[in-house]
């Protein structure tokens, strides 16, 4: 049974404290192995296979059995960038896109053999909002023990150079953007805004290098991460400044790396979480932004307004303030927009125009300002899930070498870029 639930959103001011504040918790999480791309023949390395591994690890982490799961949620936004078709499919269960470029809840349910998962939802948006929807789903009583997983995939060939990009045509609404070479807000609109930002505040793009280095450092302390496993070396500022331009001044080391990886999380009620294997990580609020650009490109002013209002909604719904947030993991898919969240939420007092200078300071996890302790996408590969799994590990005291040394009771994590994001407030305590 697939259900659609649109009442989960908290996407405006004036909604008050979240009714399920402290009543929903994360009881377990797990990650699959991670690869750069699927080779088209190793069926133990499809994102379908990885989703099964991640689910098993999350269940083990929580001390649960498969029969304990009564709901499964996922997103089909795996960002593979292409379909497998028109290449020929394989024998079942890889006889459609399911299992190869997406992993629906129905596919996982069938192929893993859950007996009691009656709530199946494959309609969640990208993970930043999906985690919010999962929390609301448990809070609303639609599932008691929800397995929520997020596959991200990558297949052979240069990324997103198929489909319409390989044709001579810009169809429909993309006639107003692709015609001139525009390709996506996270990369290109965010870069325009970043350039506006640098010009307004007298900063330089390459000041992002400090953030890239720190993200990589944190990624190299993440045992399941891409760089830890496949490119286990730190980068230098020279590496960063010499890295090739994608859309100048955006450098390749400003960008995350598409990978194959699946993360899974167990959402449940606070009461049930207390009976499980790990200390619960409680959820205090979730928000999704509602900003819309007036015209073709969003502007710096619009982005800053959206982030201010997103933050305001988060404080309103959680009852907390910027100074309460210890762990902060905002999306860094392209480093050019991360500062919007940092400044919008004013983490550690960083105000508009101050982020780039902040990056030049001590961001280490051992230090006073452990920004993006997860390493983000930039440091672990484009999983989008490290933002959340690190937040959980930090609050449990299980982040290993990444464990922050300052107070560690509240974490804030979210993605994607401004205008398309969802954020979650996690806490060691339910109130």
């Amino acid at each position, binding site marked *: 049974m697939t259900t659609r639930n649109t009442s989960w959103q908290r996407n405006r001011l004036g909604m008050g404290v979240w009714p399920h504040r402290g009543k929903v918790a994360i009881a377990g999480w797990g990650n699959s192995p991670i690869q750069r791309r699927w080779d088209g023949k190793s069926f133990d390395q499809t994102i379908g296979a990885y989703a099964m591994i991640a689910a098993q690890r999350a269940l083990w982490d929580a001390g649960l059995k498969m029969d304990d799961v009564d709901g499964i949620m996922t997103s089909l936004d795996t960002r593979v960038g292409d379909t497998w078709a028109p290449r020929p499919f394989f024998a079942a269960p890889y006889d459609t896109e399911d299992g190869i470029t997406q992993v629906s809840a129905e596919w996982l349910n069938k192929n893993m053999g859950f007996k009691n998962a009656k709530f199946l939802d494959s309609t969640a948006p990208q993970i930043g909002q999906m985690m919010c929807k999962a929390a609301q789903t448990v809070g609303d009583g639609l599932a008691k023990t929800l397995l929520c997983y997020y596959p991200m995939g990558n297949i052979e060939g240069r990324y997103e150079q198929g489909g319409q990009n390989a044709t001579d045509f*810009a169809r*429909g609404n993309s006639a107003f953007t692709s015609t001139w*070479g525009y390709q996506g807000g996270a990369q290109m609109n965010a870069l325009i805004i970043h350039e506006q930002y640098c010009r307004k505040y007298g900063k330089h793009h390459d000041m992002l290098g400090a953030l890239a280095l720190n993200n990589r450092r944190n990624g190299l302390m993440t045992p399941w991460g891409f760089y830890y496993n496949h490119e286990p070396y730190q980068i230098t500022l020279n590496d960063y400044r010499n890295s090739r331009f994608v859309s*100048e001044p955006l450098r390749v080391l400003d960008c995350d790396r598409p990978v194959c990886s699946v993360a899974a999380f167990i959402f449940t009620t606070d009461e049930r979480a207390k009976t499980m294997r790990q200390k619960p990580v409680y959820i205090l609020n979730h928000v999704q932004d509602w900003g819309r650009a007036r015209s073709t490109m969003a*502007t710096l002013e619009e982005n800053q307004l959206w982030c201010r209002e997103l933050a305001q909604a988060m404080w309103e719904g959680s009852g907390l303030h910027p100074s309460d947030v210890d762990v902060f993991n905002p999306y860094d898919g392209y480093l050019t927009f991360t500062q919007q969240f940092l400044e919008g939420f004013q983490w550690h007092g960083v105000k508009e125009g101050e982020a780039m200078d902040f990056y030049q300071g001590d961001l280490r996890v051992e230090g006073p300002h452990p920004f993006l302790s997860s390493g983000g996408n930039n440091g672990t590969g484009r999983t989008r899930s490290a933002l959340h799994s690190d937040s959980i590990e930090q609050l449990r005291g299980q982040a290993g070498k990444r464990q922050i040394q300052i107070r560690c009771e509240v974490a804030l994590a979210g993605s994607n870029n401004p205008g398309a994001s969802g954020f979650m407030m996690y806490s060691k305590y339910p109130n």
Partner: protein
Amino acid sequence: MPKQIPVPNELGKPFWDAAKQKKLVVQHCAACNTNHYPPKQRCDKCNSAAPLGWKEVKGRGHIMEYFVIRDTRIRRLMPDQPLNLAVITLDEDPGLNFLSNLPGTPAGQVPVGGAVEVLFEPVEGSDLLIPEWQVIK
């Protein structure tokens, strides 16, 4: 420089029909006097049920910001890299912005804040004209 050929949908067709006549048009809500570009299904300022019209604008603007495309995913544009991608604000309504490759301006040498005017360029393989913007010297 061959761009991709626009294939308008019903919503955008009036824009591209006007461009063929070398006219730059934007959507206009008569109920609240708001302009829209790109076109929308309904006015999101006043949410009026009345259909949005179109009005011609002068085609003068300024360069808000830009970057240089060096690794495009669009096959048709690959041979012409590096190329500018600039955002142009419309002088008549600076809240509206257009994209441009700034023909005549070398890649990376864009005068941010500079004045531009619209021109209409042919696109290889079609009889459509594409609005572009050039720096006013």
